[in-house]
């Protein structure tokens, strides 16, 4: 696969993922990070805060964005998996998370339905430090809630 063919992947969109947010999901994420912030745990406390109720931590929307429900790393139907499959044909079989940037506009709450769309916005071949080539991919995701409001955007850069 040539550099040009790789570039042709830019603009590829993932199938929108729908995520119904529950208290349990919020607490699983907070617990796994070791974060006891009462805004994620304590309904009564959160109700008295400016949010008026429980919220999710920022960057909450990991699952099922990366590898959808029931799917494994190597057998995915979403954009990350698709791109991984395509660029593997060009000899890039590994992937490392190089960086992420998020912007948060609105809190995510239990009961919300978040629709996540993703698009490959960049792909670039570079000379690696140790010689040989490397590939940088950038995927942008947009999270929209049930009211049609954009709650967050996120960009992921991968090194392959």
């Amino acid at each position, binding site marked *: 696969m040539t550099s040009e063919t790789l570039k042709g992947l830019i603009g590829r969109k993932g199938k929108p993922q729908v995520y119904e947010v529950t208290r349990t999901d919020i607490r*699983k*994420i907070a*617990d*796994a*990070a*070791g*974060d006891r*912030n*009462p*805004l994620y745990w304590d309904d009564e406390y959160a109700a*008295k*805060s*400016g*949010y008026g109720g429980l919220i999710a*931590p*920022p*960057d909450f929307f*990991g*699952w*099922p*964005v*990366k*590898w959808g429900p029931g799917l*494994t*790393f190597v057998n995915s139907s979403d954009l990350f998996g698709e791109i991984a499959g395509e660029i593997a044909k060009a000899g890039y079989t*590994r*992937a*490392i*998370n*190089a*960086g*992420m*940037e*998020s*912007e*948060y506009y609105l809190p995510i709450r239990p009961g919300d339905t978040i629709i996540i769309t993703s698009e490959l916005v960049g792909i670039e071949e570079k000379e690696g430090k140790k010689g040989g080539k490397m590939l940088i991919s950038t995927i942008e995701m947009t999270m929209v809630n049930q009211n049609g409001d954009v709650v967050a955007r996120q960009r992921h850069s991968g090194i392959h």
Partner: protein
Amino acid sequence: MKKQLYWEDVNIGQEIPPLTKVATTLALVKWAGAFGDYNPLHYDNDFAVNFMKTGGVIAHGTLKRQWLIQMLTDWIGDEGWLKRIQTQFRIMDYPRRMKTLVEPEDGDTLTCKGKVTARSEKGGEYIVECEIWLENGKGEITTGGSATVMLPVKK
């Protein structure tokens, strides 16, 4: 209620209260499950060594980032809002293995740190810009980044 930070009380160069964390194999598996990142790089040592050539399983960038987020949300309080965070994963962090069901082996402790780089008022929003990073036990910055937070003002 937790202590609230106000925009007026923040100065350029001010340090964000640090947050220490220990990456353990247990923590990585919990994160993989909760966040939905099933990449075997984070729990299968042979895969990490033989295929990924990382020398062993490594901590998720997303987990290290979540710890930096926690440092920021602890600091800005309930009335603060994290608007933006950007992180670059520069050096790999290896988890400690578990010695018992609850206790890890001795090893690296990671510290989230940050400092204020700018303060501004724009369109009624009171903004603070920060540099943030994660240090390993040797004092190397394994994750670098920046963040923008919005803070309340005193009435």
